[in-house]
């Protein structure tokens, strides 16, 4: 079980979602969800594939627009922001994609520099190099600086993807399936990295997963998304202390098998 982070402020919500709905054609993915993510906490969103977990963080970051409801991020109403304001807000949010989404045509160094040089006007070469080295050191992959993404393993790609988001010192991190497709040892390393990021960069995070080991290791709170709504929200033990047949199979599959 994860040790609670020291800097969580449960009186200060960095993300507030109210009555959020999203459909794709006739398929209602999210059916009026409410959620708060507090300053400094790691919130894990659990749910079956196709239940709208990834859609949720794409809505929060403004990549998708909801059909109904409100999303407030760091005090900004995401749906009311202009393109420029949304771009400024996104700099304060780190987004780690399921498949890392590293830029294939660029080396690791160029991948890391890409958001930095475009968002910090007038930044010098020395400062860029220092920032790149710092984040690579934070994810433990300094030796890969001149490698191409195709030369990296799955776990290394995930780490570099996280490093690329950290280079802008985000206040909020969003991880989309951080351990999907990785071996158990690498999963443990990624879980530790998520906790290190929380402590070192004082971030608030949303972690989308269906891996209960990841949820247990990284989540201060767990939110279980079922049938388009958050059915259970609480600590890991609170969420799984239930006879709900929709929730039990998650626990049984991960910890009994």
């Amino acid at each position: 079980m994860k040790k609670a982070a020291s800097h969580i402020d449960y009186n200060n919500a960095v993300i507030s979602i109210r009555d959020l709905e999203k459909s794709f054609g006739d398929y209602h993915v999210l059916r009026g969800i409410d959620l708060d993510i507090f300053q400094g906490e790691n919130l894990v969103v659990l749910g079956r594939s196709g239940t709208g977990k990834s859609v949720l963080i794409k809505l929060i970051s403004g990549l998708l627009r909801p059909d109904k409801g409100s999303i407030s991020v760091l005090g900004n109403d995401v749906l009311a922001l202009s393109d420029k304001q949304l771009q400024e807000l996104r700099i304060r949010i780190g987004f780690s994609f399921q498949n890392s989404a590293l830029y294939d045509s660029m080396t690791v160094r160029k991948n890391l520099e890409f958001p930095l040089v475009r968002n910090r006007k007038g930044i010098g070469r020395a400062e860029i190099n220092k920032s790149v080295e710092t984040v690579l050191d934070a994810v433990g992959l300094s030796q890969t600086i001149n490698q191409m993404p195709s030369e990296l393993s799955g776990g290394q790609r995930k780490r570099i993807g996280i490093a690329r988001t950290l280079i802008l010192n985000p206040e909020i991190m969003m991880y989309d399936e951080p351990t999907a497709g990785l071996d158990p040892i690498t999963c443990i390393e990624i879980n530790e990295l998520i906790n290190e990021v929380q402590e070192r960069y004082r971030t608030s995070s949303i972690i989308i997963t269906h891996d209960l080991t990841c949820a247990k290791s990284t989540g201060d709170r767990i939110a279980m998304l079922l049938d388009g709504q958050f059915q259970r929200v609480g600590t890991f033990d609170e969420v799984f202390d239930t006879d709900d047949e929709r929730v039990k199979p998650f626990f049984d599959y991960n910890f009994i098998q």
Partner: protein
Amino acid sequence: MDTAGTTTPQQQKPGSKLKKRVTDFFVDLYKIGGFTARFFKEAFVPPFEFREIVRQCFEVGVKSFSLITLTGFIVGVIFTKQSRPSLSEFGATSWLPSLVSIAILKALAPLVTALIAAGKVGSGIGAELGSMRVTEQIDAMEVSGTKPFKFLVCTRVIATTLCIPLLATYVALIALLGAFLNVNTNEGTSYSAFMSDVFEPIGFIDINQSLVKAIVFGFTIGIVGCYQGYHSNKGTEGVGKAANNAVVIAMFLIFIEEILIVQITGWFR
């Protein structure tokens, strides 16, 4: 399962599939118009991605160089060879250099260059941006506060618009070289006589017309390739479709533009 009221693809009315395809094609053309407007809105506003433009120029220009060279040379040789019998019937083989130069400089050079570039460069752009879309690389740029349209689309369109005229000029010279070698071998025409005949029928307006064509073709190849890739979806199938559509739509537009430019230039003669 009750299928009453539903229509399977096999049961569709004859021609409905064709109608859908034609409709989709023109809807695509309409959307490319909107995409072009966005290009003009963003391309000339700082910050400018000069380094990426240079890199894309290298991709477009240098990487198609060998194919363009070979094709240009063959076009020159073949066109000269095929035109000879017709001219010799009238005892007019001395007009061969003039005929070849009119055909190459006014029509073939920009058109051949554009068609090759549509196949090689346009499909490459469609596939590259398409795969970036389906692997969420474009989303990753967007959420990191950068402008993917400016970095990916504007740079590629500017690169093709700049490079296709240069490649067309190069193709014209190589095709004329092929024509000269053929004429020199068969008729023994000297280099100076050939060159004097080549430029004699070509006026300022002809050079400008070819240049305008090449610029318009280059822009079309870039914008269509980028549009198809940028709006690609449905995984790897979508990437293939984007690459394919980038070629088909660009070629269609190139022929339409060719007709329009020739017609418009005719009014100024």
